[in-house]
């Protein structure tokens, strides 16, 4: 029979054990491990800031806060990066390629960051990549879409979790043919630089493979940030196409949609906006109903339902009063991939070296708010994921945008396999595509 003294002693011991257990269970706060310095680069000013750069920056800010507090759902719930607090420095991507490279060198050489996560413009990514390799600086490209980064030569220190733009346009072609198999002709209006040219090339290449009888009518490449599209809209109004492909984004997309709605072009042809998801919360009822919308992958309303996605949408919306769009998702996925690689490379509380993190990052596979991603091509440095397209509708009862008729395409259906570049893969008939 227990006496009072032994009962109290047992109770005290139990309390001690429970409190020790609680401390062990609770994610360790970032106190003892060395801090991890990140450079976050995106457009903070200029035309690309509002739709891309600022959502990306906000995505970084909210994710880093959550990571440091250990509040990201499992398996990302370890505080910081491997217990080390993340310290972020935010840099504006605006400026010439020379400016962008200078700022990159400053981050790496002067500020001694452990990694750089950034870049919206394909031009910036192409400029920074060789410098990152030269400086052996771990760099994660978060938004730029050019496939060329890992096709030109193998990389050791540069990674991209977000799939590249080929997926966007192959997915667009597949969705279009799934929903409108009877079209006979399409036209295109894309910005006259790498992004626009590559987008149109990949879209027409995919259409040629999947539906060779459908013809191309008008092919328009106005200047980047031209702003005035009267002549282009007149040209399209005199066209017989049923569909218009555009990779316009930001101010160009908005200006074009306002001007075409004033002239009812969207009543004559269905518009495919491959980056349209980033604009739906700004345009709202000014995005024409029936527009085929892409989100550079399964992001925003196109994201698969999961605990992580719901959590991310909530924390972002609560902070910034607007749902996250695809640049925010891409930034979140990039940071999660980097965190996983860091923690995989880490031994104890010691900071892993750049080479160790790079080795751990290669070929990594994980699930984030955008669903599953695997760094399966580009020698394990370039991510692929499924993609999704849908049709836009403004819900007047709820007074908010919706994307309906969503179709998902598996990663291997819309991305080239390892060992072949995107352009060749499309030209050769997209062999090996698993749909």
């Amino acid at each position: 029979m227990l006496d009072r003294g032994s009962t109290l002693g047992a109770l005290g011991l139990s309390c001690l054990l429970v409190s020790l257990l609680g401390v062990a269970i609770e994610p360790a706060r970032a106190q003892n491990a060395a801090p991890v310095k990140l450079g976050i680069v995106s457009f903070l000013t200029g035309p690309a800031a509002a739709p891309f750069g600022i959502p990306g920056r906000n995505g970084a800010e909210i994710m880093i806060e959550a990571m440091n507090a250990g509040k990201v759902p499992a398996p990302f719930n370890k505080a910081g990066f491997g217990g080390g607090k993340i310290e972020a420095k935010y840099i504006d991507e605006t400026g010439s390629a020379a400016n962008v490279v200078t700022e990159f060198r400053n981050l790496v050489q002067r500020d001694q960051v452990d990694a750089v996560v950034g870049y919206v413009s394909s031009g910036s990514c192409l400029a920074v990549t060789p410098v990152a390799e030269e400086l052996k600086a771990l760099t994660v490209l978060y938004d730029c879409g050019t496939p060329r980064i890992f096709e030109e030569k193998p990389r050791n220190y540069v990674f991209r979790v977000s799939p590249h733009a080929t997926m966007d346009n192959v997915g667009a072609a597949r969705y279009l043919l799934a929903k409108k198999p009877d079209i006979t002709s399409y036209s295109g209006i894309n910005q006259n630089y790498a992004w626009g040219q590559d987008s149109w090339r990949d879209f027409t290449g995919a259409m040629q493979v999947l539906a060779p009888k459908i013809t191309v009518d008008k092919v328009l490449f106005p200047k980047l940030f031209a702003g005035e599209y009267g002549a282009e809209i007149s040209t399209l109004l005199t066209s017989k196409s049923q569909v218009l492909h555009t990779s316009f984004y930001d101010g160009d997309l908005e200006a074009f949609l306002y001007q075409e709605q004033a002239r009812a072009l969207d009543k004559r042809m269905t518009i495919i906006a491959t980056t349209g998801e980033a604009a739906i919360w700004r345009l709202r009822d000014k995005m024409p109903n029936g527009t085929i919308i892409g989100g550079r992958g399964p992001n925003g309303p196109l994201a698969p339902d999961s605990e992580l996605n719901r959590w991310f949408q909530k924390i972002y919306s609560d902070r910034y009063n607007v749902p996250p769009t695809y640049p925010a998702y891409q930034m979140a996925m990039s940071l999660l991939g980097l965190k996983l690689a860091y923690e995989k490379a880490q031994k104890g509380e010691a900071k892993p070296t750049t080479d160790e993190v790079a080795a751990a990052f290669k070929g990594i596979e994980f699930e984030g708010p955008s669903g599953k991603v695997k760094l399966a091509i580009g020698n394990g440095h370039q991510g692929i994921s499924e993609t999704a397209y849908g049709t836009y509708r403004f819900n007047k009862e709820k007074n908010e945008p919706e994307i309906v008729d969503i179709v998902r395409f598996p990663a291997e259906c819309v991305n080239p396999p390892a060992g072949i570049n995107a352009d060749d893969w499309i030209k050769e008939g997209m062999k090996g595509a698993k749909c």
Partner: protein
Amino acid sequence: MLTAFAILVDGLVYAAYLFIVAIGLTLIFGVMKILNVAHGSFYTFGAYGAATAVGIYFDRGLPAAGGFLLMALFAMVLGLALGLILERGVMRLVYGRDEVVMVLVTYAAFLILEDIVILIWGPGSYATYQPLLAAGNTEVGELILSNYDLGLIVVAALLAMISFWALKFTRYGRLLTAVIFDRETAAAFGINVRLVYTVTFVIGAMLGALGGAIMAPKIAVTLGIGVEVIVLAFAVVAIGGMGSIEGALVGALIVGICRAAAVHLVPQIELFVIYGVMALVLLIRPYGLFVRAQPRKI
């Protein structure tokens, strides 16, 4: 036939937009011999001013016509203020200096004003589509024309007529013409050249701002719009001749029609055609279509 009509209308719309922006630039150059890079900032401020006015006005469900007027007035007041501040505060300190110095000063002003835009309106973009959509459209066969664009042509035509009348038939216009032709002789005849400079610069600023206000409903008002338009305005002014109003009009028409034709018929050369035309004109008439070679004074 429809294509030809579309090229004509599109060309006139584009020409109208360019003329409204370029007329202020050519006026300032003609009188003050300053290539004013900050003209792009006047355009930008005009556009942002119109965005602010549209935001205030159209959300209250008031008649659309008032909104158009408010937009233009708001922008011109901004242009007036900006022109005065820049001319009195900066330009008058560098009159008489080398032309390169003048260009650099206006470029510096442009950069500063771009940052001031961020301070006032932030880095985001503004949508001011309400006047564009409120104006409706007109169908001509298969072509649907925006009434706002047609109005733009009317505004540019009115501006051209008013400018012509003001220069030819008003006292101030004759003073301005005298200063354009020969500043020193005009001063010798007792014309207050400095006052003419101030008034001209302010009028140029107001016209630049008006251009921005008029274009705001068609574009996303964001940073960088001034840069794009100033390059085109320079091309128009170079074709027509620096300082010539009729040159700006003809230059705008040539650029507008050529660009529209390229977009419709040979879209591959659309970017090149404006500068190709400019190069061709300057080969034949190095000072532009409406300006003769000037003897150099030593």
